């Protein structure tokens, strides 16, 4: 286990581990508004069947998740909860921002209560434009994220506390 401590490992191992990480993304769903319906269509319907891409959308808590998809309007009241759930995720963690509201506030950009973009509170890896995006757009975002994961060094993604294995 010492080999993968905080994501540091020899090069060949990295490639192998990235390959397995790429195809077993545990995805936590944050459907905050109407984009969540499209996300549900991408996950649960046989037409799109996201699990064939290796995405497993059923972690019981953010502590078991590799990836979150935030879809929907984030209000200023909700923002602290979004941030807190993100902080509970183990490294390395990935964020997909789905839909105009999550990207920048969308049609509610001038509201007194809406956060103007998910990237104001947590870092985002892939943005999906659309109001709402079609489920295929979410599949495309997953494919883009997988292309990013296969080439990266997990140690560079390690933001939080080092993992100590005794």
């Amino acid at each position: 286990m010492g080999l993968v401590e905080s994501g540091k490992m020899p090069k060949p191992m990295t490639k192998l581990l990235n390959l397995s990480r790429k195809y077993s993304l545990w995805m936590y769903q944050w459907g905050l508004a109407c984009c969540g319906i499209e996300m549900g269509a991408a996950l649960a319907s046989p037409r799109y069947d996201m699990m064939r891409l290796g995405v497993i959308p059923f972690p019981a808590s953010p502590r078991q998740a590799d990836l979150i998809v935030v879809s929907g309007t984030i209000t200023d009241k909700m923002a602290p909860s979004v941030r807190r759930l993100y902080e509970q995720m183990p490294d390395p963690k990935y964020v997909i921002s789905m839909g105009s509201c999550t990207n920048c506030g969308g049609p509610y950009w001038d509201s007194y209560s809406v956060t103007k973009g998910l990237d104001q509170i947590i870092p985002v890896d892939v943005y999906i434009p659309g109001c709402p995006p079609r489920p295929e757009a979410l599949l495309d975002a997953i494919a883009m994220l997988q292309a990013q994961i296969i080439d990266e060094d997990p140690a560079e993604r390690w933001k939080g506390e080092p993992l100590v294995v005794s």
Partner: protein
Amino acid sequence: MSRLSSADSRATSEEIPATEAADTEEAIEVDEAREDLLADLRAELGDALVDTHIDPGREVWARVSLESWVAAGTFARDGLACHFFDFLSAIDWMPSPFGRDMNSQEDLIVDGAPDSAAQAPGGAAADEQATGYAGGDTRFQLLARVHAPSRGLGLILKADLGDDPDLLRAATWVPVYAGAAWHEREAWEMFGIDFEGHPNLIHLYLPGEFEGHPLRKDFPLLSRRVKPWPGIVDVEPMPGEDEATVDTSEADANEDATEAAAE
């Protein structure tokens, strides 16, 4: 669906001549069920019932004095069989002090640019203050709708709250209709109305540290004040629309947006 009382709907109903309304087949001249309901309310409240309005076959409005707000609610529940509480909210009738500078660039293209006097912040935008059905004397009005399922009738109750934004007070309806509790919490945070006797007057929708009352007309949309509406750059012509005209108006809008951003 019943029409809500608003300045627009009132203006529309006044514009239709009475003869024209009588010609339409479904027009009901006298709505006896609603007249009876108002008669009962008038017998109970007396002078506290300030003004009424009936839209035959649709809805009935009753404006009561603020002192008899709870009495009116209690009588609506016990005497008029209005057992279903629909909603409670408030209205700020003041014309926007910002004139039309809150309008989007899209609105400016559709309606034309406002004249400079109305555009100046705090300047005399000077539309008449509307009051809606059953009238009103003050800037703020409380309104609630209750429904009598057994009679198939609804009743909209209104009360004048006053003009001073710092002194908005009303007695709570929670002992009468328990469901009013959350509605009053919303009206409290959105308009700053203090509901005396409410058991738990805390924020419902807004974060705890939020300052201001967003549904008041003098609450500025800060985002829109610092940035013109950006969506106009994405406007596409509708099918069949003349693309040349749309292109020029789009170019104008972009120039406007650039000028506004430069200012």
